[in-house]
């Protein structure tokens, strides 16, 4: 029977890794991810999780150890945040191009400098081209469920890609809240043992990570791109199967009051919960507003996203990272690219805020809607504005 327990998002992730009978954890502690690996380290020491915990000297080594572990066919987990994710950056591309089903939880954090350990999406967005499947959980229950699903998705033979489970640093990783923790019996055969099809084996040697000259590199790249784009069906199937068993449902694009919405806010991560409160209030006032929560970020669910914002005349993006010197932030760029040239494409503007742990209240989201309306009404040529920043 599932127990209703109170825990931080970090501990919920650790419980999912334990229930998954993970074989190897290789990780280096960094705020705000520390509690995930501390808890796993305790579980291994106490015999609750029969895994090899590799205490590495850096995140670069953590991800490198994960490559080796995953390549021999072991169920492999790691976790990091912020600067740590940046330090493993080059190795991330190897995990995806070698098609190794590693699962990683990221407690998203700002990037230096100035040094800041609090939450935003700078680290997540800096890794968006690295070929991993990436999705976001917004509370303890979601990150528990989605971490469990991540193993099933990554290891599925139609997928074989590493999966990053994103959770907002502190706002999810450190907030104690209730969630339902199933036991082994309830989990049943949802997550079968890993069966990686190409394990390194001295009796059947293969070469992984070989070099590819110009004559063949482009073909390798296209093969990888086609492969990651073909994972949509499996991701949704796994979430649907999870939903049937546990009655908690996940979709690549989640919508809130979008049916007849004229203005739709698009955002990612736990601040969506604040945005939803603002949407509810504005709806009570008779304003036709709605919220689209991007859950699956890579591969981007293009058709589902277009469908979700179909009714909108105006689309507003709120995002928690900057593209210094760029035209807009990364989420807005994705949205504009997804909608450009479509029939009846909406007007689009965007806001950047919630950087380095700064909160966004429902009232600020209401102000955001108001300002967006002003930008649209006056036809102002504004690509993005910051919100919640002292002028």
């Amino acid at each position, binding site marked *: 029977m599932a127990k209703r327990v109170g825990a931080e998002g970090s501990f919920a992730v650790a419980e999912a890794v334990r229930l998954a009978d993970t074989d190897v954890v290789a990780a280096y502690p960094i705020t705000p991810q520390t509690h995930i690996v501390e808890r796993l380290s305790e579980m291994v020491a106490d015999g609750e999780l029969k895994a090899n915990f590799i205490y590495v000297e850096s995140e670069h080594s953590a991800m490198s150890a994960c490559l080796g572990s995953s390549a021999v066919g072991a169920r492999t987990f790691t976790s990091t945040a912020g600067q740590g994710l940046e330090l493993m950056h080059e190795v991330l591309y190897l995990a995806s191009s070698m*098609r190794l089903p590693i699962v990683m939880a990221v407690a998203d954090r700002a990037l230096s400098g100035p040094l800041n350990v609090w939450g935003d999406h700078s680290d997540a967005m800096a890794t968006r081209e690295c070929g991993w499947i990436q999705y976001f959980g917004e509370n303890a229950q979601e990150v528990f469920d989605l971490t469990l699903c991540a193993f099933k998705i990554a290891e599925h033979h139609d997928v074989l890609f590493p999966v990053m489970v994103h959770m907002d640093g502190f706002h999810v990783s450190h907030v104690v809240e209730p969630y339902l923790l199933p036991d082994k019996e309830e989990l049943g055969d949802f997550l079968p043992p890993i069966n990686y099809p*190409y394990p390194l084996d001295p009796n059947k040697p293969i070469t*992984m990570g070989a070099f590819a000259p110009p004559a063949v590199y482009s073909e390798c790249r296209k*093969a990888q791109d086609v*492969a990651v784009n073909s994972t949509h069906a499996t991701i949704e199937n796994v979430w649907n199967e999870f939903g049937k068993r546990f009655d908690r449902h996940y979709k690549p694009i989640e919508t809130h009051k979008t049916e007849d919405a004229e203005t739709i806010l698009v955002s990612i991560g736990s601040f969506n919960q604040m945005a939803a409160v603002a949407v509810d209030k504005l709806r009570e006032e008779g304003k036709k507003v709605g919220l689209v929560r991007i859950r699956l970020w890579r591969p981007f669910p293009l058709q589902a996203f277009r469908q979700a914002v179909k009714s909108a005349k105006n689309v507003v993006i709120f995002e928690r990272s900057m593209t210094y010197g760029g035209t807009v932030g990364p989420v807005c760029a994705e949205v504009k690219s997804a909608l450009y040239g479509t029939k009846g494409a909406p007007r689009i503007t965007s806001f950047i805020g919630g950087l380095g742990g700064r909160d966004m209240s429902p009232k600020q989201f209401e102000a955001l809607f108001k300002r967006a309306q002003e930008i649209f009404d006056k036809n102002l040529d504004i690509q993005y504005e910051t919100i919640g920043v002292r002028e």
Partner: protein
Amino acid sequence: MAKKDFELTWKDIPVGSIVHEPGNASQYQTGDWRSQMPVLDKAKCVKCGICYRFCPEPCIVKDDDGYYVSDLFYCKGCGICAYECPKDAITIVKEEH
């Protein structure tokens, strides 16, 4: 290898670009990187084998008569053999492709 690398389409690429046939680097032709090639003058050669020792590829092999000759399937035309030859028996000549 059934196909040469430049004949492979993206659909031919194995999952993860894994090479399932170990030790197949010997089938990889590096000779076509070459723009110049070594030519051995057997009248000058004393079969000392210094070129054989210095060749970084290493693609110089001893033939049935004891001469050291370059295997042009692999030779990249670096010219180290010609530079090191104490008898100036090896000349590097431009090659038309």
